[in-house]
């Protein structure tokens, strides 16, 4: 079976549990098991090749540019790990079928489990290290789901998050390390990297690469000081613990160290870091394990200790130590999985895992007792079980490394014996109790079958190591060390009396004594102050979260004034910085003479602007001041020979001021005082900086001799665009598309205002509006007769003016935009004079529709040119004579301008109508004029001025 398929099978299979659960829990478990079994069989099909020392490969191109490819390879090391993952995985699936409670969603469990299994298989089969990283992070994610499976338990959630945080951190470090490693080797393929030992170890980047990779491996494999997450992951259901902490997740770090052993090991740094961390972890874990009352807690720290042991062996950097590490990986997986399952059985049946509440179970649960005892003795390193063999070899290596290693290893072994014996004696021996939370008894066969099979292996490997695993260990060790010849070693129970045996005997004897003294030691341990990793971790994460939260809120305090101050300051600093970073030569264009008119103009612009800074709190006054500035600006345009702009500016000014005036009705007369003097000073400095900066920039720009494409428009306006008014031809022809965009902006603004007001009226804001209007001072006569009459008279005139401005647009100042505004002002005044309802009643065209038709007209004009084989918005013009008029020009741009006209008119009127609607809502009781000449009497009744009634 292809390696890719083996890795993919669990992922594909992850879809099955959800589907099969409908057919029952057995079907669900069977389907899951079948997937794993299939993958396992696929793996075993490669066994002969692997034992021959061949490397099986499967390669698929994925992302060659990055060097990320779906390349898999299988050698001894990969085979061993994949075998453990799938083999023990299969046993776990069987075990979990009987372990999970009825209320537990089994499909989720198996789905997560298969995802995790796939990720693990992926890690050990990956040839490409980027692919390996993907699987690596996937194990973090899927284990997060598994550990948090019992989501109602706080321990589960916290444990899951802690595991994700710690292993996630390691994973990210590993990304860095692997990328560096790949860069040194020039390839992200392991098979290539493994051949580049020289290059890697001599590279300057060896140290950072090593540190980052080890951070990844240590966090995953719970090496000191990152060991603390593992015990908290025990909140997961026991099958998960048994799987993650015996054969898989935590072994991933070991796998990585073993995989990269040929290229990374052998340096002093490697030795001190890896062997050192391993040594500390091994001893520390063993000591703590003795004082854990939770069965799974004990096993968790025991796991930490054994992982330390293997890490230490890998760290030693000798080939023989690597062999021992390989051997112990197999042994540890078998007995530890069995022990976790035993603990699960006890928990499941007695409803407690607290050793202090257990004891005497050997009579009540004989089968469990036998299984647990054999596995625990193996963990203790007692003969004739497999744990003894690898422990002896480990002690041998430690004894030959240094005295420190010898002493520490003996201490670790001693505590191993003590906690293993405690597992057996405090749980199964002692008097039978009558206060178990539930009546314990052996579970059904389904639940003890899996651990039973494992202890059979424990015994068989212990008794016949060479037959059982001899060739496997050799093959794997060759793969780890990447050598063809291994140094001499012997897998056997008896090696004669040597240092290791003596250390073992000391350990067993002392361990037994420790267990006898356990009560007293335990009291001392509990009394002794010791750092509680979870509390530190929680406090740290909590503090960081609070700090981040405080910082984020501080930075984003929601104050618009501050945001804008930062914006302006940043712009000034960066733009000024850019300007002063390079050469500048002032332009040579002569200055214009200063005329009286220009002085007056500048004063009229500057005085209101400065006044605005001081008087802006009064909204009405601000509006007047802004109106003045706008007006002077229009005059300025006219003065600088831009009558079109002047007209536009003027009409825009009028419309906006009127609309703003109407809007002011809904706002308080004054803005609240918010700024402190300090802040005002700050804003003044920033504002002055920005203003002076812009002034300086404009000065610099205007002193340049103009050299631009403007000449083209002057030359081609009449011949190409058919108009004398260059500005208008630019607007509707040369850059007609800009205008098209701008009328759309106007149209959107109109309908957005409509949508906003509609939402406002429905919401609480509408209610506030009605409340507020009661306090407003109202004028005596809402619709003064004079105004009504005047506006009525103006309306037709304004419309004629609008038409005139529109028509002359192409050759003289004017055009659709201005015409639209002029007509809008005229209609607007009808609203002001006679009120919304009066005006609405006479309005036959919906403004939404007017906007839509306007945009569509403009678009249609543009599209029309397609039919003449020209691009969008290509204009054309010709001369027509309709008697009795003289010959006049007709340009297609005029149709476009109609669109502009309609959109402008529609948008302005829609905005106005909405404001009026709000006004009516704010004062719903106001009388409505039905006739133009109606006047409101003092009593609020309406009296018609024309019909004397």
């Amino acid at each position: 079976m292809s390696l890719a398929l083996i890795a993919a099978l669990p992922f594909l299979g992850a879809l099955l549990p959800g589907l099969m659960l409908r057919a029952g829990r057995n079907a669900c478990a069977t389907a899951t098991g079948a997937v794993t079994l299939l993958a396992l069989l696929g793996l075993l099909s490669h066994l002969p090749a692997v034992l021959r020392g061949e490397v099986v490969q499967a390669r698929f191109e994925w992302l060659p540019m990055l060097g990320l490819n779906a390349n898999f390879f299988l050698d001894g090391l990969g085979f061993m790990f994949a075998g453990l993952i799938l083999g023990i995985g299969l046993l776990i699936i069987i075990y979990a079928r009987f372990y999970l409670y009825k209320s537990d969603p089994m499909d989720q469990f198996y789905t997560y489990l298969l995802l995790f299994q796939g990720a693990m298989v992926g890690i050990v089969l990956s040839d490409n290290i980027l692919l390996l990283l993907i699987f690596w992070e996937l194990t973090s994610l899927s284990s997060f789901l598994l550990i948090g499976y019992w989501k109602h338990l706080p321990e589960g959630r916290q444990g899951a998050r802690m595991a994700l945080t710690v292993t996630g951190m390691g994973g990210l470090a590993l990304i860095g390390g692997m990328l560096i490693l790949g860069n040194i080797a020039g390839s992200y393929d392991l098979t290539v990297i493994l051949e580049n030992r020289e290059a890697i170890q001599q590279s300057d980047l060896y140290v950072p690469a090593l540190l980052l990779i080890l951070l990844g491996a240590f966090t995953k494999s719970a090496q000191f000081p990152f060991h603390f997450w593992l015990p908290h992951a025990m909140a997961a259901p026991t099958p998960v613990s048994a799987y993650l902490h015996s054969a898989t997740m935590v072994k991933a770090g070991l796998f990585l160290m073993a995989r990269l052993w040929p290229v990374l090991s052998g340096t002093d740094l490697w030795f001190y870091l890896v062997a050192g961390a391993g040594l500390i972890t091994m001893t520390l874990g063993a000591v703590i394990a003795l004082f854990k009352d939770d069965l799974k807690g004990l096993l968790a720290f025991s796991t930490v200790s054994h992982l330390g042991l293997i890490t230490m062996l890998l760290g030693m950097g000798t080939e023989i130590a690597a062999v021992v590490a390989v051997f112990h990986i197999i042994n540890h997986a078998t007995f530890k999985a069995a022990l976790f399952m035993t603990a699960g059985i006890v928990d499941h049946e007695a409803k407690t895992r607290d050793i202090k509440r257990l004891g005497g179970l050997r009579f009540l649960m004989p089968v469990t007792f036998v299984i647990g005892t054999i596995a625990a003795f193996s963990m203790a390193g007692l003969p004739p079980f497999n744990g003894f063999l690898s422990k002896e070899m480990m002690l041998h290596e430690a004894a030959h490394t240094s005295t420190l290693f010898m002493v520490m290893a003996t201490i670790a072994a001693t505590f191993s014996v003590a906690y293993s014996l405690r597992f057996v004696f405090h749980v199964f021996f002692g008097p039978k109790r009558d206060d178990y939370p539930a009546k314990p008894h052996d579970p059904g066969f389904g639940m003890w079958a899996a651990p039973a099979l494992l202890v059979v292996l424990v015994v068989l490997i212990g008794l016949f190591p060479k037959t059982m695993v001899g060739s496997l260990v050799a093959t794997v060790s060759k793969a780890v060390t990447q050598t063809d010849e291994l140094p001499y070693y012997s897998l056997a129970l008896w090696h004669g009396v040597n240092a290791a045996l003596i250390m073992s005997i000391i350990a067993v004897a002392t361990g037994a004594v420790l267990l006898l003294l356990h009560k007293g030691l335990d009291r001392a341990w509990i009394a002794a102050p010791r750092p509680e990793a979870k509390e530190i971790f929680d406090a740290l994460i909590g503090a960081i979260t609070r700090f981040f939260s405080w910082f984020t809120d501080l930075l984003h305090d929601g104050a618009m004034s501050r945001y804008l101050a930062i914006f302006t300051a940043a712009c000034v600093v960066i733009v000024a910085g850019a300007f002063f970073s390079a050469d500048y030569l002032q332009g040579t264009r002569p200055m214009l003479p200063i005329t009286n008119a220009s002085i007056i103009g500048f004063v009229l612009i500057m005085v209101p602007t400065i006044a605005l800074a001081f008087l802006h709190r009064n909204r009405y006054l601000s509006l007047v001041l802004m109106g003045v500035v706008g007006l002077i600006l229009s005059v300025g345009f006219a003065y600088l020979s831009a009558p079109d702009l002047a007209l536009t500016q003027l009409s825009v000014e009028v419309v906006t001021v009127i609309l703003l005036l109407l809007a002011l009705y809904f706002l308080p007369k004054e803005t609240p005082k918010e700024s402190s003097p300090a802040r005002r000073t700050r804003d003044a400095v920033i504002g002055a900086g920005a203003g002076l900066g812009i002034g300086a920039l404009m000065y610099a720009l205007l002193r340049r001799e103009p050299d631009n494409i403007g000449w083209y428009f002057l030359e081609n306006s009449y011949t190409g665009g058919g108009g004398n008014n260059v500005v208008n031809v630019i607007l509707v022809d040369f850059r007609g598309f800009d205008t098209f965009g701008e009328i759309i902006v106007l149209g959107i603004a109109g309908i957005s205002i409509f949508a906003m007001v509609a939402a406002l009226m429905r919401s609480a804001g509408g209610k506030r509006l009605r409340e507020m209007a009661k306090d407003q001072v109202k004028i005596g006569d809402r619709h003064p007769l004079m105004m009504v009459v005047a506006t009525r008279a103006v309306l037709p005139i304004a419309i004629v003016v609008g038409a005139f401005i529109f028509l002359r647009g192409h050759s003289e100042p004017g055009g659709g935009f201005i015409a639209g505004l002029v007509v809008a002002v005229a209609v607007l005044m009808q609203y002001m004079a006679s009120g919304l309802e009066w005006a609405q009643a006479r309005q036959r065209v919906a403004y939404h529709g007017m906007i839509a038709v306007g945009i569509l007209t403009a678009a249609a004009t543009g599209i029309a040119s397609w039919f003449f084989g020209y691009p969008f918005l290509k204009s054309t013009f010709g001369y027509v004579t309709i008697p009795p008029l003289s010959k006049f020009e007709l340009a297609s741009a005029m149709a476009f301008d109609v669109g502009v006209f309609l959109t402008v008119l529609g948008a302005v009127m829609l905005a106005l109508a909405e404001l009026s609607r709000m006004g009516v809502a704010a004062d719903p009781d106001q009388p409505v004029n039905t006739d133009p000449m109606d006047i409101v009497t003092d009593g609020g009744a309406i009296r018609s001025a024309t019909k004397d009634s």
Partner: protein
Amino acid sequence: MTHFMVLPLIITAVMAPTLLLVRGQLVIQRTLSVATTALLVVICAMLMAQAATGEVTVYKMGNWDAPFGIVMVMDRLSALMITLTALLALGVLIYSIGTKWDERGAHFHPLYQFQLFGLFGAMMTGDIFNLFVFFEVLLIASYGLMVHGGGRLRTRAGVQYIIYNLAGSTLFVFSLATIYAVFGTLNMADMAAKAATLPPEDAALVRTAGAMVLLVFAVKGALLPLHFWLPNTYTHAPAPVAALFAIMTKVGAYAILRVFTLIFGPSLALTGTLFSDLLMPAALITTVIGMVGVMAGGSLARVASFAAVGSMGTLFIAIAPFTEGATVAALYYLIHSTLAAGALFLVIDMVQARRGTCALDLRAPIAQSGLVAALFFAAAIATTGLPPLSGFIGKLFVLDALRDHALAVWVWGVVLVTSLVAVVGFSQAGSIVFWKAHAVKADSTPAAPATGVALAGVGGLLALIVLMTIVAGPLTDYLTDTAAQLYAPEGYIGAVLGAEE
């Protein structure tokens, strides 16, 4: 000249007012809206296929030659951007209809098409003033969408959004004045041609112009310290609109990529590495601030908003060096983060709809908890850049492309550490909403809102993320060509100005 190229613009410009005419007839509006957007996906994809050949297509509006008239230009980058926009828009639109978001206020569908018009225009135009016009179109349309449905917080956030962006627009006008005074033209290709001929004493003004447009685009791209409009806007905008906004920030990124490869390119002696040097520190800080905000929590929407800031930072990290390799990484990450942010906001809306709030407080489990949790998990994985989704590949790309950069250590450190911060932030948020909830007894399980159509929208976006992970190889081939085209702007300039000869 074929008109096919401008169809995305014409179709949206015609469809938006048409939808306005049929206001009040929701069924017709929905049908037209979806059909149009689906059609746009097809057209954009065809344009992308055409651009993939390396051909730069130019469309002269009003038949005026560049640089005098306005041109639309379709190269690989533009085609990619509009296709991405159309895809995101379709998913979000379907979701909005499925959840009846479009009924909650007036004119959703016309505004939506107007928004697309603005986006397409900004991504296609070859004229910098026209770019300004389209910035206005998409700003005003997005404002209309942003306050869709109303509400106190939303309206307030909307005001801040528009004021801040109008400040940006003002700066844009100043920069256009500078550009026209210095370059004497507004056509980008023409500017590029002129830039090479400007004398050294113009360097200061050229740099000023560049810095100003960089700031303008940085506002759109939410780059620190000009990002302040984003968190509140995204948090309080209607979720589908926030999802669509995922592409809005990318317009800023697109504009920077376009203008700072074409006009102020890395080979322009007058500006040197100034813009790269400005951009990189800002990008690094943006990433940090964004991810810090993710961990700060508050509500799911706020978490997602800051994640959007953070991802923009990462994107700008990849843009900043202005090298071909890094740009490939940037483009891949750009596509990814657009889809991921879109999906994330939609999933958060599903939470909000079932829970009444997306604040990170303790409430009973929501209806369809498992389904929504799974979607959230997927979207969070994508957003934080964990495998197996494209975010991880994107980050690998960025790290790999910047390994020789002067600030490589900083880049690696920031990208990796902030990823962890984001992972912690998302796991905390998700744990409260989806796990801790199970500790609370519900009085009664609230009914689940209709899901079928809405789910298709979310699922579609997530499926695209999966797809871009699987076909990463062919996709990066296109992106590699795109980057190559960007850094050899002669083709673009020739296609635009060639008509003169």
